[in-house]
C-alpha cells in the first residue's frame, strides 16, 4: 500500500460563524478518482477550495505527499495541483484553446519569461491527450461545452500536476459529453497516475467513474467508501430526502429516485 497522493484530515471551515465544512477527511492515491457528492450547500465546493489551497481550513490539514498545502507558495502548489474551477470566464474571452492551455505553463515560467519550444511541445501533447489538438487555433467561445472542458483539462495537464481537482466538470453538458469528460478523467488517472477529485451532482455518473465516493451532508461526511457501499438507499435517502431505489446494471450501481416518497421527511426544495 503506497502513501496517498492527496490526504486531508479533520477539515473545518466556517463563513460568518456558520460552519460549512466540519471534520472532513479523505485520501486519494495516485491513479484513483474520488467523487465528492452531496446536496446543494453541503460544502462540496468549500471542501475543494481547501484542498486547492484557496481557503485555509480553521482546523485540520491538507497534504500533497509531504507538502503541507496550507503553507505552500501558490507557485509551488500550482506545479503539483491543477484545478478546473466553475468560475472559468473563458467562454467570453477571445483566447484560443492553445493560449488557454499555454496558461497552464505559468507556474513553470519565470514572471517575465516567454514560453519556449519545450512549453509549446508540452501544450501540444496535452491537447493531443484530450483529443483536442484539432481545436488548438479555435477561440474558446466557438467550442461546445464538452470541447471546452477537454481544453480546460488539457490546461491542467500542461501544468504537469499529479493531482487534479475538478468542480462539477459535467455542468451544462449533455449526456454524451458528461460521459466523455469523466471517461477522460478516468483514463488520465489510470494511464498517467494522476490523483483526481471530482465534485459531481449526478450520483450515477459518480458510480461509474469514481473509485471512491465521499458524500457530504450539512458539511459533514455522510458516507465515504467505494460506490457499491455508499450508493445504497440507507445512505442516500436521508441525505437527499428523497426515495431511492437501486438497480445494478453490469455491476455498476444505478439509482432511481421517487420525489413523492414521503416516509423520509420533506424532500429538498431543489430536487422537487
Amino acid at each position, binding site marked *: 500500500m503506497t502513501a496517498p497522493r492527496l490526504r486531508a484530515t479533520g477539515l473545518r471551515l466556517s463563513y460568518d460563524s456558520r460552519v460549512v465544512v466540519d471534520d472532513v477527511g479523505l485520501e486519494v492515491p495516485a491513479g484513483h478518482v474520488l467523487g465528492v457528492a452531496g446536496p446543494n450547500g453541503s460544502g462540496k465546493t468549500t471542501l475543494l*477550495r481547501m484542498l*486547492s*489551497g*484557496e481557503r485555509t481550513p480553521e482546523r485540520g490539514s491538507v497534504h500533497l505527499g509531504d507538502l503541507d498545502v496550507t503553507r505552500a*507558495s*501558490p*507557485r*509551488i*502548489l*500550482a*506545479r*503539483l*495541483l*491543477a*484545478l478546473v*474551477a*466553475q*468560475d*472559468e*470566464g*473563458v467562454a*467570453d*474571452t*477571445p*483566447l*484560443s484553446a*492553445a*493560449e*488557454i492551455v*499555454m*496558461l*497552464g505553463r*505559468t*507556474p*513553470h*515560467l519565470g*514572471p*517575465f519569461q516567454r514560453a519556449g*519550444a*519545450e512549453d*509549446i*511541445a*508540452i*501544450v*501540444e*501533447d496535452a*491537447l493531443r*491527450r484530450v483529443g483536442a*489538438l484539432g481545436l*488548438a*487555433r479555435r*477561440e474558446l467561445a466557438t467550442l461546445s461545452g464538452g470541447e471546452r472542458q477537454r481544453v480546460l483539462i488539457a490546461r491542467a*495537464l500542461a*501544468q*504537469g*500536476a*499529479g493531482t487534479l*481537482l475538478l468542480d462539477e466538470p459535467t455542468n451544462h453538458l449533455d449526456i454524451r459529453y458528461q460521459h466523455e469528460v469523466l471517461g477522460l478523467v478516468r483514463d488520465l488517472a489510470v494511464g*498517467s497516475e494522476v490523483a483526481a477529485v471530482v465534485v459531481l451532482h449526478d450520483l450515477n455518473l459518480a458510480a461509474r467513474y469514481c473509485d471512491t465516493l465521499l458524500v457530504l451532508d450539512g458539511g459533514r461526511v455522510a458516507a465515504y467508501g467505494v460506490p457499491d457501499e455508499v450508493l445504497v438507499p440507507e445512505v442516500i435517502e436521508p441525505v437527499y430526502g428523497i426515495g431511492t431505489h437501486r438497480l445494478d446494471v453490469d455491476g455498476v450501481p444505478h439509482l432511481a429516485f421517487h420525489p413523492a416518497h414521503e416516509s423520509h421527511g420533506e424532500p429538498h426544495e431543489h430536487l422537487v
Partner: protein
Amino acid sequence: MATTDAVRRAADPAHPAAPPVTDLLGIGARRRRFALWTGALLVLLVGSTLLGVAWGSVRLAPGVVAGVLADRAGLPVEVTWAPSSDAIVWQVRLPRVLLGIAVGAGLAVCGVALQAMVRNVLADPYLLGINSGASSGAAAAILFGFAAGLGQHALSVSAFLGAMAASALVYGIARSGGHVTAVRLLLAGVVVGYALYATTSFLIFASGSAEGARSVLFWLLGSLGLAQWGSPLVVVLVVVGATVVLLLLGSRQLDLLMIGDATARALGTSAAAARTRLLVLVSLCIGVVVAAAGSIGFVGLVVPHLARRAVGARHAYVVPVAALMGAILLVWADIVARTLLAPQEIPIGIITSLVGAPFLLILVRRLHASTTG
C-alpha cells in the same frame, strides 16, 4: 535553470523532447499577425504625428515640419522657414501631439487593465469613478483656489489627488467585507462616480462664478491645449511609458485575471494581490493623464476592443497594440478638434464621445446578441 528543467521533466514525464515541426497551435501565426499590426501601427503613428504637427489653424508643409524637427535634433539642415514656423512646430504643436500620444496610450492600456481585472468588457477608467475624482479635484482648484499655494501646478496636483482619492475610496468600498471581487469593484466605481459627479456639480453651483464654471466645463470636456514643454509633460510621458512596460511585463497575470480568480490562484497567482497592484498603477496613470488633459471619454473603453479584434486576447499582444491605437486615435481626435471649427477649438472629449458612443451601442447590441442567441 537546470533545476527548473528537472522539475518540468519530473512533473510531466510524457512530454516529448523534440521541438514542434509545424505550427499546430497557431502560436506562430498569431505572433506574425501581432508583428504585422505593430509595424503598421508604428508607421501610422509616425505619419499621424507629422500630420498632427503640420495641420492646425495654420497649415504647414510636411517638409517644413521635418526640417524643423531635424534642425531641433541638431542635424545640419538649411533653415528655409520663418521663425514663426519653428515656434508653431516646436513650441505649440509638438508638445501637444506628444501629450496626445501619451494620453491616448495611457487611457487605452488602463482600459485594457481594468477590463481584465474586473472581467467586464464594459469597464473603463471612467466607469470606476477615477475620472470623476480628478474632475472634482480640478473643480475645487479652479473655483475655490484649492492648493493655490502650488501656483501653476495647483490644477494638476488637485486633479491628481482627486483621482487617487476616488480610486482609494472605490477600492476601500470594494474591499470592505472581504475579497475584492470584480462585481463589487464595478458597483463601488459607479457609486463613487455618481457621488463625485454630484460633488463637482455642487461646487460649480456653490461658487456662483460664471467664469469659473466655464473653466470647469472646459476641463470636464478634455483638451490637449495646455500642453507645453516642461516637467508636467515629462511626468505624463514617463508615467504612461512605465505603465505600458509594467503591464507588458505582467501580461500573463492579466490573462489569468481575465479567466477567473480561482483559476488564477490555481495557476500560482493571487488574484486579489494582482488586482491591488493593478489598481494602484492604473490610478497613478489615470490621475496623471486626467491632470494633464482633463476628462477624455471612451478611449479606454473603445480601444481595448479594437486591439483584441486585431490580435486576439493575449495581453502580451493587446497591451502594445492598444497603446499604439490609443495614441493614434487621440492624435487624430485632436487634429479634428483643432481644425473643424478653426480658429475655435472643440474640446477633444466631444470628438471622442461622438466616435465612441455609436461604437458602444454596437458593442452592447453584439453582447446582447451573443447572450440571447
